Structures are given as structure tokens and as C-alpha cells.
């Protein structure tokens, strides 16, 4: 198993554009969480999905949305990009909830 995979690896977008980030969990894991990591800070929780339902949401504006598909993969969408959205976006999967979360390599988003 390759572990949690994320695509793309890097992305450059312009202010006002929209972006979609993708995550494939470890086989058998039903929970996916998304985190934003700004340079020099720890990861900040955005969303958690379990069995295709949103189970938790962090303090992020409505421009951020996500969903989980029947195969448990997930997408994070960000609309109307701002310069401050530039960050490393991490996806983590687990069998259930927050326990033993396994992280992907992240997607580096740069907004210019």
C-alpha cells in the first residue's frame, strides 16, 4: 500500500480562482481529514469526513468545502482564492475518527 496519496503535488493559482485538491486514503480507511499548514505553523484542522458524511469542521470560511466519495477518496475545494490561502494542504486518513491518523505528503498551493 502506497499510503495516503494526494494530487497534485504543487499548484499555482491566481487570486479569485478556484482549486480542487484530491486525496486517496489508505485501503480500508473510512475517515479522511483535511488540514492547512501555513509556513512556520502547525497544521490547522479544516474538515473531517467519515462514511461520506461531514463529522467535523474547523474555523474556515464557506469558501472551503469538501466531500467524500463512495470509495472513501476525498476532494477539498476552495473558491475565490486569496493570497492567504497559500499553504501546504494535508490529508490524513484513519480507520475511525482522529485515532492513528496517517498523513499524505501534502499539496503545496501558491496563490499569486
Amino acid at each position, binding site marked *: 500500500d502506497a*499510503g*495516503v496519496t494526494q494530487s497534485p503535488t504543487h499548484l499555482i493559482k491566481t487570486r479569485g480562482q478556484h482549486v480542487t485538491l484530491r486525496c486517496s486514503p489508505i485501503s480500508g480507511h473510512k*475517515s479522511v*481529514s483535511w*488540514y492547512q499548514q501555513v509556513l*512556520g*505553523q*502547525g*497544521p*490547522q*484542522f479544516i474538515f*473531517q469526513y*467519515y462514511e461520506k458524511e461531514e*463529522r*467535523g*469542521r*474547523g474555523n474556515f470560511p464557506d469558501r472551503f468545502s469538501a466531500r467524500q466519495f463512495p470509495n472513501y477518496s476525498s476532494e477539498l475545494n476552495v473558491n475565490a482564492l486569496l493570497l492567504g490561502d497559500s499553504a501546504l494542504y*494535508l490529508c*490524513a486518513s484513519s480507520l475511525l*475518527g*482522529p*485515532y*492513528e*491518523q*496517517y*498523513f*499524505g*505528503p*501534502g499539496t503545496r498551493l501558491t496563490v499569486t
Partner: protein
Amino acid sequence: AQRVTQPEKLLSVFKGAPVELKCNYSYSGSPELFWYVQYSRQRLQLLLRHISRESIKGFTADLNKGETSFHLKKPFAQEEDSAMYYCALSGQGGKLIFGQGTELSVKP
């Protein structure tokens, strides 16, 4: 408020010296605490969790509810321990709350 504080951004020690990375938390209820590590060019990975009471790579961490601390310790640092270390708390709604991280640098 649920919060994790790691007061040191950088900790530099010599090989063979003891290491203590500090972590304090704020949480009402029984916390679930973790230490994650990120080695250079690698993904974030779980180092240890307090309920398992394990020693991983020589590291241990004890939950002190009175002092609301979960410090990470190792008696003799190795160069390969150089990495970013994050303390994390499992909060309400199933989210992990991370501290800002401490960069550990072990010099030869």
C-alpha cells in the same frame, strides 16, 4: 478553549545529551494527546500517543493532568532525531489540534 502550546520553536542539543520538548495543553475533559514527527522531506507521522504508554525510538511522554503538560523526552539524543516535532490534541468533533511545532537539531 482547546489549545496546544509548544513554547520553543527551536531546540538545539549535542549528540548524547538529554532532550525535552515541551507541550502544554488547554482542554476541558479527558484529553487524547499525541506527538507527531516530520523528518526532512518526509510526511508527518505519528510518533506516540499517551494512552499506549509506549517508548518509540527511545522517546517517552507522560501526561501530567495537574500541569496540563505532555512533554516529550529522550535520555540520549541521536543525530537522526533531528526533525520537526508537533504535539497534538484530539478535540471535539474528531479534529486534531496541533501546536506550532519545535524544530529539534542534534549536533554531532
